[in-house]
């Protein structure tokens, strides 16, 4: 249902964008005459109104035909898979780092309210306020241009070690995503640590580590799981800004180029996939919440 609405709205928006594929074809080939254009328009169905074209497309997708990419002149799915691989590596590692490090720091801050909490709090505000693209540029200036330790962007050529190329983009993306985990883990833990069952656990003589991780953390983890689910959509929709700055191929850049180049089939396929994964992840988050929190199950 949601998928249908998303795809219809995207189709409408793309139809409202300047130019259509044939305008671009005319620019590319001056020999094309007005008669040719009309013939091609009819051939590709571009003379039909928007909603008719949308229905035709949706019917084809339901039959498993995703059409051809206009920009790359191959089936849309064939362009998608390599980009998806690049994005999974980049966004996947960044999200794991952001989630684990952010949650750990947040828990640590809640456990040490005097000394560490204010620092972590300030860090979270700063990270939340830093524009991703600017952070990426600053990291390039510092580590690639000034110090020369790491490549400024791009991907490894055959035979090169791919890891150095990943460091800066992953760091940028992880920093951008970490603030949410930090803030929620910290707030959740601060709320839990003041409760009676924590005092009971401490009174039993449990080591502080067990009190924090076995008792308090599972109760504070629910918002963290929810954010992780919302972020998971980015595994497919990509990280447009980071990919642009570091010149890495990926879904974000692919969808952006497809939108800009009037490549309906490719853009819609990418967006649909992203929306689908986000919804599945949200569903998974609901299920995980039920597993870790019996209170949710009871309701």
């Amino acid at each position, binding site marked *: 249902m949601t998928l249908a609405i998303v795809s219809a709205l995207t189709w409408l*928006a793309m139809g409202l964008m300047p130019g259509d594929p044939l305008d671009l074809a005319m620019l590319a080939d001056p020999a094309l005459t007005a008669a040719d254009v009309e013939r091609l328009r009819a051939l590709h169905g571009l003379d039909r109104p928007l909603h008719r074209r949308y229905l035709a497309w949706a019917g084809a997708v339901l039959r498993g035909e995703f059409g051809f990419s206009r920009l790359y002149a191959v089936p849309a799915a064939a362009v998608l898979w390599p980009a998806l691989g690049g994005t999974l590596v980049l966004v996947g590692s960044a999200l794991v780092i952001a989630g684990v490090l952010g949650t750990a720091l947040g828990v640590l801050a809640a456990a040490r309210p005097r000394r560490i909490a204010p620092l972590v709090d300030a860090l979270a*505000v700063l990270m939340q306020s830093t*524009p*991703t693209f600017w952070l990426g*540029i600053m990291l390039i200036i510092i580590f690639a241009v000034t110090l020369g330790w790491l490549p400024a962007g791009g991907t490894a050529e055959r035979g090169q070690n791919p890891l150095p190329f990943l460091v800066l983009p992953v760091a940028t993306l992880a920093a951008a995503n970490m603030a949410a985990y930090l803030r929620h883990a910290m707030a959740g833990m601060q709320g839990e640590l003041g409760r009676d069952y924590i005092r009971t656990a401490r009174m039993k003589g449990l080591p502080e580590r067990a009190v924090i991780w076995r008792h308090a953390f599972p109760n504070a983890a629910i918002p963290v799981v929810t954010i992780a689910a*919302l972020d998971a959509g980015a595994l*497919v929709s990509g990280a447009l*800004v980071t990919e642009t700055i570091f010149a890495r191929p990926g879904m974000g850049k692919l*969808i952006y180029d497809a939108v800009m180049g009037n490549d309906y089939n490719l853009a819609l396929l990418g967006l649909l996939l992203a929306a689908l994964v*986000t919804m599945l992840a949200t569903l998974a988050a609901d299920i995980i919440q039920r597993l870790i929190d019996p209170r949710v199950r009871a309701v």
Partner: protein
Amino acid sequence: MRLGLGLALLGLLAGGALAAPLVQAWLGHDPFAPDLFSRYAPPSAAHPLGTDDLGRDLLLRLLHGARVSLAVGLAVALGATLLGTGIGLLAAWRGGWADAVLMRIADGMLSLPALPLLVVLAAVDTGRFGLPRGEALSDIARITAILVIFGWVGVARLARAAALRELTQDYVAAARVAGATETRVLLRHVLPNIVSPITVATALAVAGAILAESTLSFLGLGIQPPAPSWGNMLSNAQEMVFSAPLVAVWPGVAILLAVTGCTLVADGLRQRRA
């Protein structure tokens, strides 16, 4: 403490934005006219922060950019607050079917991949609706409208939660018994009591809008040059990184300060309430 610090930061930036014409008269440059003989000039008395890739004064562009970026931020927050509060109140008051539909829409918006959709929306050719494109004012209006579409959700959820709590209070029942119309109950009795959570959401909306505007402008879909915005001042950063790294620093610092200011104000308001 936080509230004060945040307000001071925002005040500083707003003051800079207002003072842009004064500084311009004092320095005597035109921030919109390229001067190719002084590209990437280092900071000097004539150009306190140096010049950009087209030889335009950076400080002046930064201050004029503040006008654009802060205007978009405030306009979006205003629109999102009005729309969000209205929808939140309506959902809480009607309950049932209307509530379910409105909140499912809100959930749906939250679970969508925001940036790709923003890109699609920002690329829509407003010329087809007879609106001019490419002028600074119409760009601001276009970006504001797009960001309001995504910005109302946060406000609406908070407003609904707060309104639901207030609607069960005795004073609401008392007002109804006294013969107040439903409109009067909502606007005169419930609304004043949910203002404080809404202001928190508004402050966060300003922060989000400034970030989103700068990102879209950075990608070339927001405010179009020659009008400066903090985002589009960085749009050819790739090239600046090697030739003039300092040029790339300032717009980001401005965004950072503005968003930090809003976040601090939101946190401060929340703490004061708690």
